[in-house]
């Protein structure tokens, strides 16, 4: 008694969450970027980052796929970022979702953020480390495209890092705490598996 049996995951439900999560990330990414633009393609407020990180934790590789797939579509539709430029941001976006998803699985942490260890991993890895990696890879891609110079990189790196980190801390923590108990009862919740 008391054991929760979740219905088996199917391609239809997981495909739907893949598509739906891509949709929400695009909408949130576009509205978020527009609310506090810094300049060019860097925003001082990018709440889609919170969804990128949460997607990796909740939906495993389905969430990670969304994390690097949706910016290509949202950047093209929202800001007309050319295809090849958007494609070079794939590594940055991949690590912004995969790293925390791996840490939570590797150390058997709880996405409901119940213990101090869960909180530490979420803040240090999910919000800070991921964005250090993402901002470094992303701004390096922009430097290689010539969009800004090596000397200007730290300035835009800081813009990327801050713009991604604080929405992840505020909204990511809130969503994980409030929504995880609800999402874990559904069949789209993949944690602690990857697929």
């Amino acid at each position, binding site marked *: 008694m008391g054991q929760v049996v979740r219905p088996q995951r*199917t*391609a*239809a*439900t*997981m*495909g*739907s*969450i*893949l*598509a*739906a*999560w*891509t*949709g*929400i990330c*695009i*909408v*949130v990414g576009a*509205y*978020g970027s527009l*609310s*506090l*633009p810094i*300049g*060019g*393609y*860097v925003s001082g*407020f990018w*709440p889609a980052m919170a*969804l990128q990180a949460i997607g990796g934790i909740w939906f495993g590789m389905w969430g990670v796929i969304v994390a690097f797939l*949706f910016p290509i*579509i949202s950047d*093209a*539709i929202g800001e*007309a*970022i*050319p*295809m*090849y*430029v958007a494609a070079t941001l794939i590594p940055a976006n991949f690590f912004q979702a995969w790293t925390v998803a791996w840490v939570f699985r590797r150390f058997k942490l709880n996405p409901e953020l119940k213990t101090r260890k869960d909180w530490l991993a979420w803040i240090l890895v999910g919000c800070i480390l991921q964005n250090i990696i993402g901002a470094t890879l992303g701004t390096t891609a922009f430097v290689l495209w*010539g*969009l*800004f*110079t*090596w*000397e*200007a990189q730290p*300035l*835009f790196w800081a813009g990327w890092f801050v713009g991604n980190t604080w929405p992840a801390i*505020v*909204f990511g923590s*809130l*969503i994980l705490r409030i*929504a995880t108990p*609800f*999402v874990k009862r*559904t*069949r*789209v919740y993949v944690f602690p598996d990857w*697929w």
Partner: protein
Amino acid sequence: MSTQQIVTRYRTFFSYVDAKSPANKMSPITKIFILLFFNAYPIIIDNPIYNAMFGFLNIILMKIFKATLMHVEKYFKVLMTLALFIFVSVIFFGRSVAGPNPTIIANIGSVEVYSQALGFGVMVYVRMFALVSAMLLWLSITTTSDLMSAFEKLKISYVARTYLTMAFRFIGMFDSDFNTIQDAQRARGLDIKSQPLWRRPFVFGYYLIPLVAITIKKAIEAGTTMESRAFKAPLKIKLLQEKGLKQSYVGKYYWRYSGKDTAIIALLIIAFAGLLIARLYGLVANPFM
């Protein structure tokens, strides 16, 4: 009584195109070639004059293809912020792109402004203008059905195409849900647009959390509906189509191809090879550096 003429238009990713537009006669696969070549051209070319000409050509093509420019113009504002982005970078932090013997043309306080860095900035900015206008052109003339039928011809699997189509469908759906949430919050006295710029991000959570709940609910409903309609596939997505599958409705009714498409594709391939050769011989270098 006056008679009102109804003009049939098709919804593309960015705007609308007139039903009689030449873009609607073009094969979906030709549009994929246009995407690949038009995005590659500005990268191969360093000369800002050639890239500027290419950028304006894209805008002229949008007119020729009868794309509704009123929906596209707002995206050119991106180019204004991009200008700020690039020129602040090359003016204040331009040493690394100025070469070994830079020429100082001005001093802003203790900052030296180099002519080579400005030349580099012009090259990058005009390249971005060409790239953005190329992307706008493609997004203005391509419909979801075009993309799906092209993917089918390129042997992309039915499952991958279905998920991609759904993602595009969900964008519009969540966009409208987001507006509904905005209206609901406004009815409760919260209007994000009336907030000062610095406060907007802080109230964003009131929109984000309901949207996340709606997303998960809709995804589960969509998945259940698909299952009830006998959608079956392995959990690991196969990217390529299996042999012997029937042509889909979209593939059958939205696919078109004519001799003109062969001519356009051949022209694009020849132009691409020509550009690579021109680059090899330094014919498309930036004269301002």
